[in-house]
């Protein structure tokens, strides 16, 4: 025993060197053939063997040095940190967490103007600021908020009522096609069709709800998955109405109380005497989806305090106990499906108005999976957690489109786009290992007696007493 204790002090370093060498050797073995050699076709259609020793060396070095640093420095550091600072960090976090929703909301409200101001300062001209902000308002702002809204909608079904729904994108599709078809055929306005799309989606939610009432867990997931696919296949094959894979284009844009966002003399820019730019419509859409998302959050927060929201949560916890407390689980499930679907429908009609084009391509299973992943990553049931997860997931994938700098490292042949989903998957695994219950894993109680006297999450473990 004494010998072992003497060796202890420098063993971390030795261990790190060993593990680093091992990781390097493993990486060499793994990538020797995959990365080290590459066959290309030359101009005469012959296969040419290229050797890429430099690239292979980079792979091996990254693996070896990475492993060494991880074992020697990062692991001991994080262990010490979590040991020493846990109490302090807890306190800081809780103070930060309390004000986080307000700060976040404030930032979201000024986001488009902030972007314009920054780019104005950066480019030196107002037009540069306006045009440059298009990308950030549209690709990041609107795109993320659509998913925030969808995930908040799905959260009612999955997070609150505990009904695993893998076909949520179906309601998104119903909302989008409701708007697209009714607007192109009957010329109805966005503001009339927005609630209608929600109602249609809610009806479809109830239609899905009825046959799956008796199902739970895995079985429910399979049926909802099938439902999502059925809707998509109907959209593809019912060509008379939906034009199939061709899609519906030229969908009318939304207007601001009748003021269109067109370059003409009656347009928004002309009326306010502003320079012509497409950015106003984008900013308008940004605030529209922000409003819709906030509506979803507000309704969710309100419902959670009402008997129906309570019943949803109780249903998630224990269906049999619910029934024996006199809760009608049939209507409880149906209202959860209908409410969740309605917000999906709202988001769908917004999507159609924003894109001006819908096709079944937009409503594939991957969309359902991403929305569900956001809900799970955010921590089932937590609105703030879900918003963060949506920003990370959708903002992250958008950022990953801009990996051009990697070309400088891996050479001009490197196509970063191909690695987007790989990095995305890796990030998800890391988050689930690091925070297995999602970003905000603790359920915030919706009722308190007297004062908030909560036991720290340190001492509570969910599940079985």
């Amino acid at each position, binding site marked *: 025993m004494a010998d072992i204790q003497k060796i202890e002090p420098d063993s971390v370093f030795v261990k790190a060197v060993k593990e680093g060498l091992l990781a390097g050797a493993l990486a060499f073995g793994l990538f020797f053939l995959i990365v080290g050699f590459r066959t290309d076709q030359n101009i005469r259609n012959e296969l040419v063997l290229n050797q890429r020793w430099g690239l292979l060396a980079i792979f091996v070095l990254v693996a070896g040095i990475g492993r060494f640093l991880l074992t020697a420095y990062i692991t001991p550091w994080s262990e010490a940190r979590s040991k020493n600072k846990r109490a302090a960090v807890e306190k800081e976090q809780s103070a930060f967490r309390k004000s986080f929703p307000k700060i976040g909301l404030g930032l979201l409200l000024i986001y488009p103007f902030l972007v314009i101001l920054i780019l104005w300062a950066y480019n030196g001209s107002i037009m540069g600021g306006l045009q440059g902000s298009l990308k950030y308002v549209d690709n990041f702002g609107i795109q993320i908020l659509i998913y925030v809204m969808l995930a908040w909608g799905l959260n009612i079904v999955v997070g609150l009522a505990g009904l695993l729904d893998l076909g949520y994108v179906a309601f998104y599709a119903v909302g989008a096609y409701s708007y697209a078809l009714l607007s192109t055929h009957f010329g109805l306005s966005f503001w009339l069709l927005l609630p209608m799309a929600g109602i249609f989606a809610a009806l479809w939610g109830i239609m899905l709800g009825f046959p799956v009432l008796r199902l739970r867990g895995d079985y429910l997931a399979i049926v909802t998955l099938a439902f999502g696919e059925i809707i998509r296949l109907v959209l593809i094959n019912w060509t008379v109405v939906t034009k199939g894979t061709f899609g519906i284009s030229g969908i009318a844009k939304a207007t601001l109380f009748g003021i269109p966002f067109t370059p003409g003399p009656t347009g928004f820019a002309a009326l306010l005497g502003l320079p012509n730019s497409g950015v106003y419509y984008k900013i308008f859409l940004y605030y529209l989806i922000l409003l819709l998302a906030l509506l979803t959050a507000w309704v969710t927060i309100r419902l959670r305090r009402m008997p129906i929201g*309570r019943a949803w949560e109780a249903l998630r916890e224990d269906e049999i106990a619910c029934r024996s*407390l006199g*809760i009608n689980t049939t209507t409880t499930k149906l209202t959860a499906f209908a409410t969740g679907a309605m917000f999906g429908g709202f988001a769908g009609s917004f999507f159609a108005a924003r894109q001006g084009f819908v096709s079944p391509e937009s409503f594939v299973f991957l969309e359902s999976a991403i929305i569900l992943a956001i809900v799970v990553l955010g921590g089932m049931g937590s609105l703030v957690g879900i918003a963060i997860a949506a920003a990370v997931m959708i903002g992250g994938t958008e950022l990953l489109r801009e990996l051009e700098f990697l070309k400088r490292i891996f050479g001009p042949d490197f196509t970063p786009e191909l690695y987007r989903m790989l990095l995305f998957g890796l990030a998800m695994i890391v988050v689930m290992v690091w925070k297995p219950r999602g970003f905000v894993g603790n359920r915030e109680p919706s009722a308190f*007696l007297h004062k908030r006297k909560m036991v720290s999450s340190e*001492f*509570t*473990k*969910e599940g079985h007493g």
Partner: protein
Amino acid sequence: MSEKQALLSVEGVETYYGNIRALSGVTVHADPGEIVALIGANGAGKSTLMMTIFGMPRARTGRVIFDGKDITQLPTHEIARLRIAQSPEGRRIFPRMTVQENLQMGASLDKLEYFDEDSRMVFDLFPRLKERINQRGGTLSGGEQQMLAIGRALMARPRLLLLDEPSLGLAPLIIKHIFEAIKELNKTTGLTVFLVEQNAFGALKLADRGYVMVNGIVTMSGSSAELLANPEVRAAYLEGGRH
């Protein structure tokens, strides 16, 4: 059957799980204001009878009558709305909800109208729950969860309280406390209690009458004193296991 009308009567009930018969012609009753105990070994069908009264699963033959009304075919939530409450097997509290919210779920039939006075009554019975009011149900100890399950059932203002193994997995002192609380409740409010227990001695001490169930058949019935004195009951359930 007694002269006054029984609050609950189960008449010749047979319940099946698939093709397996779990209950064979079970007939039991509970008069208003009574504590009735049903004792039996593991797998005798005690909990099945309890759940059959609640319609999960439904009786294939026979009738369940509550307060003169045939409830055999009613859906579970409507049975609960007749003011039958249960503390089910395995407690089934809502683990991620706080004690407060669990109790509120119990009071949801009346839309929380009597929540304040009823919760005060529950806290008088189980002061521990008051200390834990903002704690999540899943973080409570087993005994506290049992108290919460009974408290949640009481919040529904029941006329009949069904208790499935309230002593399961609990320390003797806590069992004693819970049984005392049930007795107290029965005395002060006249609440009818139908109790399923493996802990035969404790249950019969508490109850006015008792039934013994073996393999889905009620084999014996009588007053608690009779059953406690019965040599067969003593041999099967009491000797060598006085809790």
